[in-house]
C-alpha cells in the first residue's frame, strides 16, 4: 500500500466518521433556554472533521510527487494471533479468574512472540505462572485491590 492509497483511505474513513457523528447529533435536543444544547458542539466537531477530510482528499489528489511503494515484511500471522490472544484473555478474565486467565495468556502470548531460536517452553510456563501469582499477591494482599477470582476461589 503506498502513501497515496493510505491518504485516500484516511480521508474516506474520517469523512464517514464525521457524517455519522453529525447524523447522530441531530437527535440531541436542547433542554434549556439560552443554552446551545448538547448537540451543538458535536455538530461543530463533525463538520470540522468532514471539512478536514475533504482538505486531505484535495491535497492527496493534487500532490504530483511520486510515492514509491513501501516494502513490508510484516508477519501478519503473528499480529493477528497477538490480537486474538488478547481478546481471548479479556473474554476469559472474569469467568476463569485473574490467576488462570493471566497464566494462560502469558504462556500463549510469550509463545507467539518467541522465535524458534529462543523458544524454551518449560521456562515460559514457569514465568507465566510465577508472574501471575506475584501480580495477584501484590494487588490482592499488599494493596487490597480486588481482582476476579473466577473458578479458583481463594
Amino acid at each position, binding site marked *: 500500500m503506498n502513501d497515496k492509497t493510505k491518504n485516500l*483511505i484516511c480521508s474516506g474513513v474520517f469523512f464517514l466518521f464525521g457524517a455519522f457523528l453529525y447524523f447522530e447529533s441531530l437527535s*440531541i435536543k436542547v433542554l434549556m433556554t439560552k443554552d446551545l444544547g448538547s448537540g451543538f*458542539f458535536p455538530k461543530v466537531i463533525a463538520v470540522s472533521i468532514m471539512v*478536514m477530510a475533504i482538505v486531505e482528499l484535495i491535497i492527496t489528489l493534487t500532490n504530483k510527487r511520486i510515492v514509491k511503494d513501501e516494502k513490508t515484511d510484516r508477519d501478519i500471522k503473528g*499480529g493477528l494471533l497477538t490480537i486474538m490472544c488478547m481478546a481471548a484473555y479479556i473474554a476469559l*478474565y472474569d469467568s476463569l479468574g485473574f490467576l488462570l486467565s493471566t497464566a494462560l495468556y502469558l504462556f500463549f502470548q510469550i509463545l507467539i512472540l518467541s522465535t524458534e531460536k529462543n523458544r524454551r517452553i518449560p521456562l515460559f510456563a514457569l514465568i507465566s505462572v510465577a508472574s501471575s501469582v506475584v501480580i495477584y499477591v501484590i494487588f490482592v494482599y499488599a494493596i487490597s485491590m480486588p*481482582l476476579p477470582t473466577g473458578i479458583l476461589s481463594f
Partner: protein
Amino acid sequence: MITQALMNVLNPSCLALICLGVIVGIIFGSIPGLSATMAVVLFLPMSFGMEPTNGISLLIGLYMGGISGGLISAILLKIPGTPSSIATVFDGGPMAEHGEAGKALGAGILYSGLGSLIGIIALIFIAPYLAALTLKFTPVEYFSIAVFSLSIIASLSGDSLVKGILSGLFGLAIALVGMAPIDAIDRFTFGNFNLLSGFDIIGILVGVFAVTDIIISGFDRQHLGDTYKKLPYSLKGFGITMQEFKEQFGNMIRSSIIGVIIGILPGIGGNVAGLLSYTATKNASKHPEKFGTGIVDGVIASETSNNAVIGGSLIPLITMGIPGNTVSAVLLGGLTIHGINPGPLIFEKSGVYVYGIFFALIVSTFAMLLFERGALRIFVKLLDIPKHILLPIVMVCCAVGAYSSNSRVFDIWCVLGFGLLGLVFKMLKVPSTPLIIGFILGKMTEENLRRALQASNGDISMFFTRPISLAFLLTAAVFICYVLWGKYKGRKNKLAEDE
C-alpha cells in the same frame, strides 16, 4: 506555627511514610497502566486513619514519586508509565536506543527534582497573589485557555498538519461520549450504561501508547529478538556535566514556568505541561531538527515541567479549593476528610497543615532524588528481560491497571479497542498524540463555551473584549501562524533541494 509544622514532618513516622509513598509512587509511575492518580487513590482510604500531617505527607510522597517514576518506563520501554511522561518518550526512547539510557535517566531524575523544587518555591511565594487574579476567571477565560491549549496540536502533528488536526478532532469526538456537561443528556452511548461516564483517560493512554506497540511487536515478531540489545549504560552522578547544566539552565527555567502555569490552570495536567514545554524548547532551540532523535534537551524539558506542575497545581487547590488536575482532585478529598478546608482563609485556620504540606513536598523531592537515583541500577535491569517475555507481562499490567479503576472488564475491552485504533492510526500514518490532547481538553472546551454563551446571551464578542481571554486567543493564533510559516518554509526548501 512554621516550627510546629516542621517538627510534624521531621517526625520519624512521617518521614517513613513519605519514603514509602515515594517508593510506591515510583513503582506505580513506572509501570504502564498504573498511574500517580491511581497510587494516590489507593492509599487515600489508608491515610484517613492517620494524623493529618502524616496522612497528607504520604499522599504527597505518592504524588511526587508517581509523576517522576513515569520517566523510567518512558525511557527504557518507550511507553509513558504515567500520562505526565508522554513527552519524555519522544527523546528519552531514542536516547536509550543510542545507548544513552543512563544519561537520559540521570538527567530525567535530576530535573524532576529541580522542577519540583521550582514548583514548590512558586507555590510558597506566588500563591496569594495569583489567587486574587484567578478568582476573576470566568468560563470565557477558561474557554480561551482550552483553545490556546488545543493550538499546540498544530506543532505536534509531524509531517501532515491535516492528519494531526483530524486526530485532534477525533480525540474531541471521543470525549463527547457519556453524559454531556451542563444538561447531563447521555450522548453516543448507544444504550451501553458502561459508557455513561465516558471513556477513561487511563484506558485511552494505555491502549494507544502501550497495547498498540505490543500488537505491532506481534506483526514484527521475527525481529523482536534482534532489536533487543542490552544497552550499554554508565552513569556517574546524574549524567550531566556542569557545562551541560549551564547550557540547560534556560530550558529548565522556561519548562518549570510552563509547568507551574499549567499546574495552576484547572483541567490541564502534567501531560499537557510536558508536551507544551517540549514544543516550546524545540521551537526555541538552535537545532530543532534534532528533537525526537534522542537529545537530552527534550527529556529535560518534559521532566522539569511535569514535576513543576505538582507545586503549581497545589496553588489553586490550597487557596481556592480548585483542583488543577486529577491527582489534586483526589488530594482535595484527603484534605477535606482531615478537616482542612481549602480557601482564602486556610493559612489562618489550618496554617500548621499548610506549612506541613510545604515541608512534606520539599522532603519528598529529596527522597525521590535519593531513591530513584539510588535504585536506578535495579530499574535499568528491566532491560535484561527479553521483549517477548516482558511485553506480555506489560500487557497484563495494562489489563490490571484498566480493570482496577472501576473493577469492570469493560475497561480492559476499551484498552484493546484503543490499542487497535492506535494500530489503524499508525498504518494510516495519523499521529496519535493530538488525539490525546483533544480528548483531555474536550469536556473543558465544550462546558466553558456553553457556560460563557449562556451568561452572555449568545454574544461571542466577550471572548475578544476580556483582556485575559483575548491574550490567550491571540497567543494561540500567533502560535498557529508561526507553525504554518515554519512548515511552508520547510516545504519550499525541500522542493528546492529536489530540483
